[in-house]
């Protein structure tokens, strides 16, 4: 029987040990999403503080780390909300490039893929890529040059799988703007992955 392990009522939380056991993990989780060391440190600290307050509710259900990551997710979303309120995006998303050069061709083929940027076959499956840590390094580096909000929107959508409406609410943007932002992020990231991962010899 997998009965949840209950801690005894007098057991007190040990935040020092939490920090040693989970601090680095939580920090990396946060920095991948926030792309800002200071913000990630703050989110980790807020997570531990909230965990101390909420310790009674934890009651040893599930793993400690899963519980802490659950709190951290909320702290990350809080950070995005604050940033969205402080710097609202206007009607037109002027951030990020629409990569017009990808489709520069002489007439009559203007608007079709330029040979230098056209996609090639990748010969890879998600199952293979998941196993490769160096792929994730390239993935992470490719996200770096994007404007912060673009990278946030992309990560919330494609990594965390949030719905469009949720992301719009968190980042205070309109859904049409979100689509434009995601489209630009995808154009950039796909090209960057192809150049740096799938055919680095060129």
């Amino acid at each position: 029987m997998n009965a949840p392990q209950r801690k005894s009522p007098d057991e007190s939380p040990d935040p020092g040990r939490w920090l040693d056991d989970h601090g680095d993990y939580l920090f990396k989780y946060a920095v991948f999403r926030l792309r800002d060391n200071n913000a990630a440190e703050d989110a980790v600290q807020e997570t531990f503080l909230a965990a101390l307050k909420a310790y009674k509710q934890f009651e040893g259900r599930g793993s400690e780390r899963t519980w802490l990551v659950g709190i951290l997710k909320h702290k990350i979303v809080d950070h995005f909300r604050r940033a969205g309120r402080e710097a609202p995006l206007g009607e037109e998303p002027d951030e990020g490039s629409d990569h017009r050069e990808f489709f520069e061709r002489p007439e009559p083929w203007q608007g079709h893929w330029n040979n230098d940027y056209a996609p090639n076959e990748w010969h890879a499956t998600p199952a293979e890529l998941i196993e490769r840590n160096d792929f994730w390094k390239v993935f992470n580096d490719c996200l770096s040059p994007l404007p912060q909000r673009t990278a946030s929107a992309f990560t919330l959508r494609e990594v965390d799988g949030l719905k469009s409406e949720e992301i719009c609410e968190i980042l205070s943007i309109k859904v049409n703007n979100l689509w434009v932002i995601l489209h630009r992020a995808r154009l950039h990231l796909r090209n960057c992955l192809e150049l740096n991962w799938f055919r680095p010899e060129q």
Partner: protein
Amino acid sequence: MAVKLYDKLKHSIRYWLLRTLPTCQQTVEKISQSMERSLSLQERINLKLHLWICAWCQWYLEHLQIIRKTARAKADEPPEFVSGAGLSNEARERIRRRLTNQN
């Protein structure tokens, strides 16, 4: 002879479609949107026809799907791939002090 004629016809249809349908630039934007909302019937027909004649946009769609599947599978795994170590010593000590004061 018949094969040659068929090839010629296929080529002409392909050429005509490429000239008539939305461009690759417009199509990749629809491909991206198809991952966010359901496309209208007209949009779907244009997309299907374009993909039928354009390997580049087929790959583009395939790559976006690979990126999504891979990224989501990785969401709750240890983010070991993030460059650099974990918390800096300074941040660790700051957080430790803050937590001790709370306790």
